[in-house]
């Protein structure tokens, strides 16, 4: 008598998987069927960063059969505080290959499809079509709109996560609804465009580099994305579209709001004949207000040499002062607290711009003093100089080209770059 006949149902998973996934297979509502669904499933994770890493980690550990990973970035040292699949030894490697390597070590049977091309409107349909479900783990609005529109076209659920500073959001767009009626609008939940028809201005949507992010916060949201995906794939999801907001420092930290049904007028998922606007041939970057500014390059541009000083010249001015010298540091107080030039004074740019006259008066009393304004990259310091020049008679009033980052690179390599 063969061993296979002593067990019913006939094993549908490799024997080792029963032991490996047993802890989740014994869950009511999950069972053998849940594991088989995960094994058959394919999920594509767009973005292998702060959200993508924890999401991929739990999807791979749970035994999702196929994982696509799309990202065109390389691992940097500043990623490691939150992008937990990457390692020190893989700095410089494409993120998708680093993540694929980590997954292979964790669960060698997961099939991983790494894609190092950037997702765009010409390749999105083709790249995402092979998968059952899409995870939005990206860090920018144009790609978020592109993913939403593509998910609608492909009729696939889009599990979207976002995180910034101490806060995060989780929402599944285009969610298949349970007990849906005949009404076509009822079959799927709203898309990202239904919720946010107008993108916020680029200056209102900062990046993690500019605004900061705590790794455990992206971890919370990325984990929730994996959980949401597993619930949808195994039939455990209640099929009710909602937006979950997480705020690490608030009590309670989690709040959830029910979403409205799809908008009949939505240009992406609305009803034919009632749609307002078109999304065909959308330039997503232009739609979201243009390219995100490259603050490093902008901080290095010198248009008027009378207004700016290079790091080495500033060093000379400080070492051989002809006159009194004052350094004004316009970064936020927290950043000033991380590191600053000895003797520099901190006036955050927000405060300075609110009332430049008040600060200029302080400078006027020191007419013999040369004033040099510094910041992190050399952008806010230019705004400060412009504002102060309008109201101040200080003869020498310049800002540091490239900011304190340039100071570190050109003058003092012991000055921290952050």
């Amino acid at each position, binding site marked *: 008598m063969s061993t296979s006949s002593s067990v019913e149902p006939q094993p549908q998973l490799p024997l080792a998987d029963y032991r490996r996934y047993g802890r989740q297979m014994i869950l009511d509502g999950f069972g053998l069927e849940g594991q088989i669904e995960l094994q058959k499933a394919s999920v594509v994770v767009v973005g292998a960063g702060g959200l993508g890493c924890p999401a991929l980690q739990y999807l791979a550990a749970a035994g999702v059969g196929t994982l696509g990973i799309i990202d065109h970035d390389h691992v940097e040292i500043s990623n490691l505080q939150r992008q937990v699949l990457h390692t020190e030894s893989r700095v410089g490697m494409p993120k998708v290959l680093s993540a694929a390597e980590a997954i292979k070590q964790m669960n060698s049977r997961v099939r991983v499809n790494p894609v190092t091309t950037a997702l765009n409107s010409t390749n999105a349909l083709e790249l995402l079509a092979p998968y059952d479900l899409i995870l939005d783990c*990206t860090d920018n609005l144009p790609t*978020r709109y592109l993913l939403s529109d593509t998910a609608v076209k492909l009729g696939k659920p889009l599990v979207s996560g*976002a995180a*910034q500073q101490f*806060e995060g*959001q989780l929402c599944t767009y285009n969610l298949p609804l349970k007990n849906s009626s005949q009404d076509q609008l009822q079959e799927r939940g709203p898309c990202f465009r239904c919720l*946010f028809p107008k*993108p*916020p201005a680029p200056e209102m949507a900062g*990046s993690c580099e500019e605004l900061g992010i705590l790794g455990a916060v992206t971890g919370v949201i990325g984990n929730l994305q994996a959980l949401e995906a597993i619930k949808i794939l195994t039939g455990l999801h209640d099929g009710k579209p909602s937006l979950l907001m997480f705020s690490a420092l608030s009590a309670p930290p989690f709040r959830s709001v029910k979403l409205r049904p799809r908008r009949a007028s939505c240009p992406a998922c609305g009803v034919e004949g009632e749609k307002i606007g078109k999304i065909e041939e959308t330039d997503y970057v232009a739609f979201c207000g243009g390219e995100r500014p490259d603050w490093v390059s902008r901080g290095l541009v010198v248009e008027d040499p009378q207004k700016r000083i290079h790091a080495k010249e500033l060093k000379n001015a400080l070492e051989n002062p002809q006159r009194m010298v004052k350094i004004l540091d316009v970064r936020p107080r927290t950043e000033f607290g991380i590191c600053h030039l000895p003797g520099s004074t901190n006036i955050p740019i927000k405060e300075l711009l609110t009332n430049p006259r008040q600060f200029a008066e302080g400078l006027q009393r020191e007419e013999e003093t040369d004033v040099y304004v510094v910041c992190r990259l050399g952008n806010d310091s230019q705004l400060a100089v412009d504002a102060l020049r309008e109201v101040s008679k200080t003869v020498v009033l310049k800002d540091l080209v490239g900011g304190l980052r340039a100071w570190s690179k050109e003058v003092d390599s012991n000055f921290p770059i952050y």
Partner: protein
Amino acid sequence: MPTITVLYFAAASTATGLTTEELPLPAPSESDNASCLPLSALADLLAARHPGTKLREVLAQSQWAVDEEMVDDPAQVDDPAQVVLRGGEEVAVICPVSGG
């Protein structure tokens, strides 16, 4: 006096420096003998309470949720005054977060 609770998240919280705020509804008018505020008038009221901040810009790009349910954009529905706050509601400002 009837009040509502406003919840701020993400950019709205950064702009105001608050996560939540109690807001008294404007006094009753002649035409209406109870305090009430159309949701469409809330943005102006909140922006006026936080002068010198970016709250007005943030609100222009945000959606409202009242008592844990999203509300259709007041600018996009036929009757902009259709959602009326009468006190006791919890109103959340929902703005998109893009980082990751």
